């Protein structure tokens, strides 16, 4: 069996499609679910590390505040002594410290009282737009400012007031913030993080206090927290350089999805293969079943045909036996009619002549029925001899004379060659065509018999001007037992066709309803060497 994918997989596309869809959904769901868990874990770890980093930053800033508060407290005890203050602040002087002074606030700023570092001297005015000195003096304890520009640098201020400063004064420190990126190695504390600390509560690039990356602000999967410093909230944002949960955990969703897809592909492949095998087997079974049914149908048909043939053979046997028995009496009647006609001779009146003709015609009709039945039941091969068709037509017309209402016309040429045929059988053909013509003209008409010589054949046309045949009748005219006439068994034309074809000739019919029918018989002429039996 020719097995093709298109016809072999019956309904097999749905299940694999469903399985693949389920597999995809399962892989997607599992992958996404696991990814969510991993991301959640990542977020929690980042949050924890961010809090730890913020704690470290806060610790550093607290230390700075404690130092300032200690120095301020000592300056308060010394009542603002410049010598003591200078000595106390000496350890605090670093490169980025621009000013350390004791200042006396007044309104929107203050005046330098004691200067330990910076290019200021007592009596100089200090601007303080944010009012940090005033806040510190009012009991704020420790106040820091945001970054402000002091070209070419950015500065920040830290101020401590009472009780960590002399009466009516504040300790004021101004430092330069470089904003340089401080990259941490992976083996350093928090080396796995990028971070930015703003001196503001929002990610303002101008307020970056500390930063470990040039890619600011940090985006995507960012941790954030606030650090309270001197009455101000510093924003700290962090981002993991590499997944904190580890590479394996990060890839776990994809690994799981991949495994599920692989299993789906394998299972789908196996299911498809098994289904194809099953479909192949079922196709084979269907094909064999169809063949079996076909064989059974053929067997039934053959059996029916055999039964029909046996029945036809039985009918043929009966018809043959009856026909044979009828031929002798028909012969005797034919002979007797001939003798009566001969004995009466010229003395026959019109009525007797007409009655004799009727008797001749009816005997001819009966003879023809018997001959057709015998020929149909058991076809006889022609005994070929030279037959003068002109003479045979005349003989046929004498055997079956025309009824009174039918006129017969003959058209023939002198010295036509004989045809090669069986005289008795060709007479049977002519009688069939002639009597058909008679019966097609119940209201009268003309029967024309025309002989036309051809190169190696002779054509005989038998035409009537009768009722004619429609296309459907014409198509079945030579079919056995098909007859629209009230008389006869409907085998005359079938027998005529068989006889003509056994002679190597042809027979055709043309007809128009209401105009008549023409039968054309073409027979091969006898060659000069043909056997002449009679």
């Amino acid at each position, binding site marked *: 069996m020719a097995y093709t994918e298109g016809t072999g997989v019956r309904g097999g596309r749905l299940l694999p499609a469903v399985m693949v869809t389920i597999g995809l959904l399962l892989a997607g769901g599992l992958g996404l679910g696991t990814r969510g868990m991993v991301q959640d874990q990542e977020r929690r770890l980042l949050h924890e590390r961010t809090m730890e980093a913020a704690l470290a930053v806060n610790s550093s800033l607290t230390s700075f505040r404690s130092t300032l508060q200690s120095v301020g407290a000592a300056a308060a005890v010394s009542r603002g002594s410049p010598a003591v203050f200078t000595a106390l602040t000496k350890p605090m002087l670093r490169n980025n410290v621009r000013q350390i002074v004791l200042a006396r606030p007044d309104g929107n700023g203050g005046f330098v009282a004691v200067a330990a570092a910076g290019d200021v001297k007592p009596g100089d005015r200090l601007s303080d737009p944010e009012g940090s000195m005033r806040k510190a003096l009012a009991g704020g304890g420790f106040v820091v400012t945001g970054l402000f520009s002091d070209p070419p640098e950015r500065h920040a201020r830290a101020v401590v007031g009472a009780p960590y400063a002399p009466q009516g004064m504040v300790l004021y420190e101004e430092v330069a913030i470089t904003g340089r990126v401080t990259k941490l190695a992976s083996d350093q504390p928090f080396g796995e993080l990028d971070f930015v600390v703003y001196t503001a509560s929002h990610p303002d690039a101008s307020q970056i206090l500390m930063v470990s990356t040039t890619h600011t602000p940090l985006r995507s999967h960012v941790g954030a927290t606030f650090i309270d410093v001197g009455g101000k909230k510093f924003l700290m944002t962090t981002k993991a350089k590499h997944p904190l949960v580890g590479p394996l955990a990060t890839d776990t969703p994809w690994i799981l999805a991949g495994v599920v897809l692989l299993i789906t592909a394998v299972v789908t492949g196996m299911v498809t293969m098994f289904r194809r095998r099953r479909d192949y087997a079922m196709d084979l079974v269907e094909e064999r079943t169809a063949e079996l049914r076909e064989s059974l149908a053929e067997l039934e048909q053959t059996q029916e045909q055999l039964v029909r043939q046996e029945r036809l053979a039985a009918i043929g046997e009966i018809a043959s036996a009856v026909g044979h028995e009828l031929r002798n009496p028909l*012969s005797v009647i*034919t*002979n007797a009619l001939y003798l009566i006609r001969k004995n009466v001779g010229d003395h026959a009146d019109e009525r007797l002549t007409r009655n004799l003709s009727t008797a001749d015609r009816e*005997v001819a009709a009966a003879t023809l029925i018997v001959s057709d039945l015998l020929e149909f039941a058991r076809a006889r091969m022609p005994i070929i001899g030279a037959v003068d068709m002109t003479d045979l037509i005349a003989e046929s017309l004498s055997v079956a004379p025309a009824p009174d209402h039918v006129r017969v016309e003959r058209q023939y040429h002198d010295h036509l060659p004989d045809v090669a045929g069986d005289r*008795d059988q060709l007479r049977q053909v002519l009688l069939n065509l002639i009597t058909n013509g008679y019966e097609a003209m119940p209201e009268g008409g003309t029967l024309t018999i025309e002989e036309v010589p051809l190169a190696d054949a002779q054509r005989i046309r038998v035409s009537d001007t009768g009722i004619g045949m429609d296309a459907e009748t014409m198509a079945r005219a030579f079919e056995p037992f098909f007859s629209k006439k009230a008389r006869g068994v409907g085998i005359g034309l079938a027998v005529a066709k068989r006889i003509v074809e056994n002679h190597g000739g042809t027979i055709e019919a043309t007809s128009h309803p209401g105009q008549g029918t023409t039968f054309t018989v073409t027979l091969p002429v006898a060659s000069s060497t043909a056997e002449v039996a*009679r």
Partner: protein
Amino acid sequence: MMPTRVLVVDDESGMRDTLVEILEAAGYRVSSAGDGDAALDRFRETPYDVVVMDIRMPKRDGVSVLKEIDGPPPEVIMMTAYALDEQLRQALEARAYAVVHKPFPVPHMLRLVEGAALRKAG
């Protein structure tokens, strides 16, 4: 000139009698026989020029009669009402002048007898 002698052989009396009458009316000198044996007896008595004989008859069929005729062979026209192809072939092989199927037009039979007589006369 001696008239042509014709022997009609048929087991059906109606056929035999009408055929005898027709041939006599046509001027032939006609005898008849009702079966094959009688036909052979007639031959032993008198030679015939033409024999018109049924193929199928009781006791002895026409073909075997044709084969057993002694003396100068006549021209034989075989008649048949229901001969099979094989019988027709045998009849022709036994040199029958013609085989004609019953019923036949009488003029056709007369032409055959005339033709056979002419051939016999040589």
